[in-house]
């Protein structure tokens, strides 16, 4: 393992990451179709789990201990409105006007895929619509900077400048990450930073880029369940994530259906 702790995946392993990514993409699509007012978050979780296992993979979130006291109990994270990330699916019913962020992770043959999206339930406010679109675009801006020879800071700066130009606050307490044999690997991929700084991006690396944008302040709070993170000021927030691998052909998003 190189000195900076970043694992490099072989072409065979990259292939498996693409498969894992496609499985995550399919699970995301299945869950997206099931989001309706009245749906319980638990139903979305069960649907995702069936989809992932049905495709021959294992949910990566279930049982995951991220330096937390409690292992994460579900397959997906369902975070509604002011919940930022790591919401735990349960009895909560989706209401018209809610926005929900869904994060899905799967392991296929030992390689990981991790992706997330934010979606409106029924009819949502134009404000919320705008937040979601901006967050989605900030991820795209970050992805556009990914290539061998660039630095992590290039991604971070791209996400930050776009998000702030749109008037949103970038969450700093949670970051994207390397991914591959583990869900969270080196390096950290913050959503804020200076271009030209940070670890060098090299062929064989895989990154999970996940901008989190808040309407209010960037501060977050952890809830008593040990996992759910909410915005400190209760404002709306959105989250998008993709897993990207770096190959000779450049950056490829593994978690979009049908590849690039």
């Amino acid at each position: 393992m190189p000195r900076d702790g970043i694992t490099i995946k072989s072409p065979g392993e990259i292939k498996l990451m693409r498969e894992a990514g496609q499985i995550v993409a399919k699970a995301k699509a299945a869950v997206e179709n099931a989001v309706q007012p009245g749906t319980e978050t638990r139903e979305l979780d069960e649907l995702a789990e069936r989809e992932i296992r049905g495709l021959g993979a294992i949910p990566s979130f279930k049982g995951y201990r991220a330096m937390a006291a409690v292992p994460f109990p579900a397959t997906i994270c369902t975070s509604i409105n002011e919940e930022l990330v790591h919401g735990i699916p349960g009895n909560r019913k989706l209401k018209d006007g809610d926005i929900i962020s869904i994060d899905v992770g799967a392991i296929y043959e030992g390689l990981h895929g991790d992706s997330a999206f934010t979606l409106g339930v029924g009819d949502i406010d134009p404000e919320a619509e705008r937040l979601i679109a901006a967050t989605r675009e900030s991820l795209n801006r970050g992805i556009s900077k990914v290539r061998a020879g660039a630095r992590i800071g290039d991604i971070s700066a791209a996400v930050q400048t776009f998000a702030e130009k749109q008037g949103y606050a970038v969450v700093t307490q949670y970051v994207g990450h390397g991914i591959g044999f583990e869900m969270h690997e080196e390096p950290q991929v913050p959503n804020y930073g200076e271009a030209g700084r940070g670890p060098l991006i090299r062929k064989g690396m895989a990154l999970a880029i996940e901008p989190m944008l808040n309407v209010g302040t960037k501060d977050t709070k952890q809830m008593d369940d040990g996992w759910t993170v909410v915005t400190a000021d209760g404002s709306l927030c959105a989250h998008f994530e993709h897993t990207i691998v770096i190959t000779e052909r450049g950056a490829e998003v593994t978690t979009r259906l049908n590849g690039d």
Partner: protein
Amino acid sequence: MARKQKEAIEVEGKVTESLPNASFRVELANSHEVLAYVSGKLKLNFIRVLPGDRVLVELSPYDLTRGRITYRFR
């Protein structure tokens, strides 16, 4: 799933040895020895650090053997 940002870890220690360029060997409470440099804020305020002083050291999560001396206790 998002990852929590890793921050510096603050530990207490006793300065063992002084090295050139405001660097010191510090023995931490957990008996680990680290190489630490004096922070600019201490230098700016003319706060001297000598062997035997009890200090606060900020360690990077990326290299637990190097740190920054950020406070000198009475």
